[in-house]
């Protein structure tokens, strides 16, 4: 294996792709399991995350069943689940709380981030900048191999007597540290996956800065690469803060520190004998004993640290998707991306502002309300670059020649849902409006419009778009479109009504809403949502089936099936380790579609200009908008 530094030095002049594409005679384990090939690692991220997508989806459906039919046995599986989870086949309150916690955590940390960043970062960056692999391939391998153990550690919580983590995906203290071993596995798991993120992100930055193909300027990179580059910066700046916060919570749990724990707490989780400042249960009697060490901590401190990471994290989840959507839309509209530089600056603005808006999650937390005003204003500012992006996407399809492939349908759906998610964000950004809708289903609706409707649809779009390059086979388009229509319709039927539940005052994270008189009227709507959610969940099997079917029977992919311009399409249809079989030189930006002087409607970045076309190309460079 070549050393990483050797790669870095030959940045602009490596012409030796050909040889290491062939001569490696590596063992099965090296090739498919502990591989350092970025494409294999990308596939591993995809498989692991799709697995977790189904785990997280199952949790969601169990939650939905309880909300629609509280106390009624879960169909099919209710009676085979262990007593610690269900009673009479119905989810218990305790298990419900674990489910909602792990649903959120799995979906965010084990599905969206690994897919958007791990999978596409790995697959797209080296190919789209025209290089053979990541700058640090071995680090890359480690970054994947932390994911499965991290995920499994968290899931083991379900088999503890005290259950898995149950303090929400936000893990707020004192509830977090005062609960049992499940919370510990949750913390350790997040620590590991954060570590994985940081390893991946440093690698992406090193690769993009040092390993671009000859002639490829930063401002000639496709939006996907730009978005991933800025995402990597967000990860390296944000994740260490989460790691610190997690360490502090672990210390509060086991070392009797009190970063987040005020003194004289009367917390009484069943198995918290480890805690000093806690009740100890003895029979039915709660014996209180005072905190022996420390005390005087601040629960709100955790929220500041957590959201200082987790607000940027929502952009970690969405920015790669925004990049993918930009590329897919331009390719299938056969049009240059509208406002290429404006799009990049908007991403930079979002990334920068993303670090000064975290307090909008804490308007009602008890922090000084003066900060509420500040965070309200900064949050409102961050909606502006989001709006800019929407307008530029609309500009991109304007006067295009739009092909409705499965990839493009998902990208168009991204715009449609992101408009709604962005607008609901503005409601919550207004601190006084947020008083009433905070911690209601309005927030749940918002989250899902941006994360499912936004990030996940963009991920689907990327899967349909790059699958041919990943596996050398085309996905079945008609199955792809079916998957899209079912997902899109039932996504909206599931999550749109949640806005209205929120306005009705329906709290989130509620095991049985109907003990409240004012919520009883919403049971039919909850039933409707549950039915839609079940169909939405099962629609995802179309995708899985499509992937499996196409791997076996799919059409062989040509080198450039979408007639796109960016460098990954210069690689062989199913590139081996080392990626390219030709020497890549870059002559132009990635969005030269429908150039008036060309016969074809695309003009790849790597195609050498012919004769006087050279001058055409020069002037074109200047016409890029700022």
């Amino acid at each position: 294996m070549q050393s990483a530094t050797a790669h870095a030095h030959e940045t602009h002049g490596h012409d030796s792709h050909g040889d290491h594409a062939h001569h490696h005679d590596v063992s099965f384990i090296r090739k498919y399991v502990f591989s350092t090939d970025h494409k294999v690692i990308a596939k591993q991220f995809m498989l692991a995350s799709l697995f977790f997508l189904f785990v997280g989806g199952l949790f969601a459906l169990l939650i939905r069943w309880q909300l629609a039919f509280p106390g009624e046995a879960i169909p099919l599986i209710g009676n085979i689940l262990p007593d610690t989870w269900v009673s009479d086949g119905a989810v218990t309150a305790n298990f419900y709380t674990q489910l909602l916690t792990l649903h959120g955590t799995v979906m965010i940390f084990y599905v969206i981030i690994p897919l958007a960043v791990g999978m596409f970062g790995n697959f797209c960056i080296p190919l789209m900048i025209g290089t053979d692999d990541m700058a640090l391939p071995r680090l890359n391998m480690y970054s994947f191999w932390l994911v499965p153990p991290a995920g499994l550690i968290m899931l083991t919580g379900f088999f503890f007597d005290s259950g898995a983590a149950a303090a929400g995906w936000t893990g707020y203290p004192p509830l977090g540290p005062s609960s049992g071993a499940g919370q510990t596995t949750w913390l350790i798991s997040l620590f590991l996956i954060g570590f994985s993120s940081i390893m991946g992100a440093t690698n992406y930055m090193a690769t993009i800065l040092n390993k671009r193909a000859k002639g490829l300027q930063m401002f000639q990179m496709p939006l996907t690469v730009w978005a991933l580059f800025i995402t990597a910066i967000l990860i390296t700046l944000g994740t260490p803060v989460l790691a610190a916060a997690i360490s502090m919570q672990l210390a509060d749990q086991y070392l009797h520190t009190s970063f987040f724990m005020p003194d004289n707490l009367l917390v009484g989780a069943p198995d918290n004998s480890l805690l000093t400042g806690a009740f100890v249960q003895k029979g039915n009697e709660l014996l209180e004993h005072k905190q022996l060490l420390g005390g005087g901590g601040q629960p709100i401190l955790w929220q500041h640290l957590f959201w200082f990471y987790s607000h940027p994290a929502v952009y970690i989840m969405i920015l790669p998707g925004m990049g993918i959507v930009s590329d897919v839309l331009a390719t299938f509209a056969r049009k240059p991306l509208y406002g290429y530089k404006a799009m990049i600056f908007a991403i930079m603005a979002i990334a920068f502002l993303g670090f000064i808006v975290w307090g909008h999650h804490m308007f009602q937390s008890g922090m000084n309300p003066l900060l509420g005003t500040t965070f309200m204003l900064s949050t409102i500012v961050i909606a502006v670059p989001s709006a800019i992006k929407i307008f530029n996407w609309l500009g991109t399809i304007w006067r295009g020649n739009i092909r409705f492939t499965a990839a493009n349908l998902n990208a168009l759906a991204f715009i449609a849902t992101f408009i709604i998610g962005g607008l609901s964000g503005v409601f919550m950004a207004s601190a006084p409006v947020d008083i009433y809708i905070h911690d209601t289903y309005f927030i749940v609706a918002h989250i899902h419009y941006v994360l499912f409707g936004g990030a996940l649809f963009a991920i689907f779009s990327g899967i349909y778009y790059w699958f041919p390059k990943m596996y050398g086979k085309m996905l079945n388009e008609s199955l792809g479109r079916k998957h899209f229509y079912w997902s899109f319709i039932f996504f909206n039927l599931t999550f749109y009504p949640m806005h209205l539940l929120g306005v009705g005052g329906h709290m989130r994270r509620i095991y049985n809403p109907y003990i409240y008189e004012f919520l009883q009227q919403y049971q039919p709507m909850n039933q409707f949502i549950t039915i839609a959610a079940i169909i939405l969940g099962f629609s995802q099997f179309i995708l899985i089936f499509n992937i499996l079917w196409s791997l076996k029977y799919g059409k062989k992919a040509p080198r450039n099936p979408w007639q796109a311009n960016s460098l990954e399409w210069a690689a062989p249809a199913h590139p081996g380790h080392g990626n390219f079989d030709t020497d890549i030189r870059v002559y132009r930006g990635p969005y030269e579609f429908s150039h008036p002087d060309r016969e074809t409607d695309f003009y790849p970045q790597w195609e050498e200009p012919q004769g006087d076309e050279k001058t055409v190309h020069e002037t074109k460079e200047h016409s890029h908008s700022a």
Partner: protein
Amino acid sequence: MSFDFSKAMEWAYKDMLTFFPENVSTFGGELDSLFAMIYYASVAIFFITYAILIAFIIMYRHQEGRKAYYYHGNNLMEFTWTLLPTFLFAGIGLWSDDAWTKSKYAYRVPNPDVTIDVLGYQSGFGWQFRYPGPDGVFGNKVRNQISSANPFGIDSNDVHGKDDLVIISPGGARPVEVHLPINKNVLVNLSSNDVLHSFFLPNFRVKQDAVPGQWIKVWFNGTKAGRYEIACAELCGSGHYNMRGLLIMDSQQDYDAWLDQQYKLVKPELSAPVSDSTAVAAVASDSTTTKN
């Protein structure tokens, strides 16, 4: 399992604003109209952007032989669609600030007519309320006297604390029930002794997290007599859903009658001789504000 189809489809034919439960507080109307303003702006933006999106999808769908327009964008357009939303959103922010400061800033909390202490608790899940008792003065709170028997940590040496009325959940499935007067500024000192909770009065548009170690002031002024629900809006454990309470808003008379009755019920020996303690009360009459 029954399924009420028209109820289930309400989301499709009822306007979003009609889902609000009745507002019965003085500032609630202002919050609702802010919501409505953003809602109308959003609906307009939604229809405009969707119309454009759908029109483009239809007009520019793939046609054989047509070539897309080779165009990289235009700075004037970029400036326009940067500035327009900036003004709109900045307007929303500035407009919002008054309602925000009014409902949360300490200096804008009006002089209270009634002050109570509220604690959320996790062992059994519910709310505890403290009224100052016939002397009208709260006993001092001392953190190191907090215990499950004395959740507020009322100072055992403070005579004002002896008559304080503490109301806790009756146990079982019955929600705790408290009364407050209408058309009065009510100040709630909110805290918790265990984990975070959030004191949510849907009809009053009040929501505030209860944070252990910190007493947070929440105020409202109810405009309509009736029976309203109290909810918890912050995950506090597996019984989080079960923190329902009832708030009965009474006329001043009914409220006084209820208080008297409570005093008799809970502390019969204190119900009559209010005058005995008034002398003491005068000395420390500033202690209605909390000390921790």
